[in-house]
C-alpha cells in the first residue's frame, strides 16, 4: 500500500518538477523563473525524502537538509540582484 502511495507521490512531484522546468524556460520574467527554480528545489527535496523512504536509506537526508538550508540563499541573491544590482552592500 505504502509503495503505491510512494509511486503516486513520485509521479506527482515528478510532474511538478517538470512543470517548474517548463515555467523556468517559458516564463516572461526572471522573477517568475526564480520562483519556479525555488519551487523546483522544494519539490526536489520532497522527492529525495520520498526516495529515501522508498529505499529505506538515510543517505539523502543531509543533502536534502543542506538544500533546504542553502537553497534560499541563491534565490535571495537573484532577487537582490534584480532589486539592487549589488547583492552584498
Amino acid at each position, binding site marked *: *500500500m*505504502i509503495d*503505491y*502511495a*510512494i509511486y*503516486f*507521490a513520485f*509521479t*506527482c*512531484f515528478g*510532474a*511538478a*518538477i517538470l*512543470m*517548474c522546468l*517548463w*515555467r523556468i524556460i517559458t516564463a*516572461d*520574467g*526572471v*522573477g*517568475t523563473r*526564480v*520562483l*519556479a527554480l*525555488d*519551487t523546483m528545489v*522544494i*519539490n526536489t*527535496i*520532497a522527492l529525495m*525524502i*520520498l526516495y*529515501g*523512504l522508498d529505499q529505506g536509506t538515510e543517505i539523502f*537526508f543531509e543533502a*536534502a*537538509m543542506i538544500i*533546504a*538550508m542553502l*537553497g*534560499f540563499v541563491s*534565490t*535571495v541573491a537573484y*532577487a*537582490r540582484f*534584480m*532589486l539592487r544590482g549589488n547583492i552584498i552592500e
Partner: protein
Amino acid sequence: MTFFFELLITVFLIVSGIFGFVGSFGMIKLKDPMSRLHAPTKATTLGVGGVLLASICHSVLLEGKLSLHELLITLFLFLTAPITALFIAKWHVHRHEKPSDLPDAGEDELWATHAVEQVEDVPDHSTN
C-alpha cells in the same frame, strides 16, 4: 495496528503528492505573476510537510526507531520560504506596481520598496 499506521502514512503521502502537484500546477495555470507566488507555499507546507511526516511516522511507527531529524528540514523551509516569497514579491512590486496601484500605506505614505529617490538616466530594466 500496523495497517492503520500504514494507512496513516499512505494518507500523508497522497496528500503531499496532491499538494506538491497543485503547487507547481498553480504556477502553470495562474496568469498574473503575483498569484503564481502563492503556488510554492503549498509545495513547501503540505507538500514537503506531508512527506516528512510520512517519513517520521514510518521510522517511528514501523521501524520503531526515534528519528525526528526530518523536522529540521521543516524548520529550515518554514524559516526560509517566507524570505524567498518576500523578495520575489518585492521584485514584482518594484518592477510592475506603481505606488498608485497599491493600497495606501497609511502614515508612512510609501511602501518600502518604492521608498527610494530615483537615480536619473538609469536605463530601464533592459533584460527580461
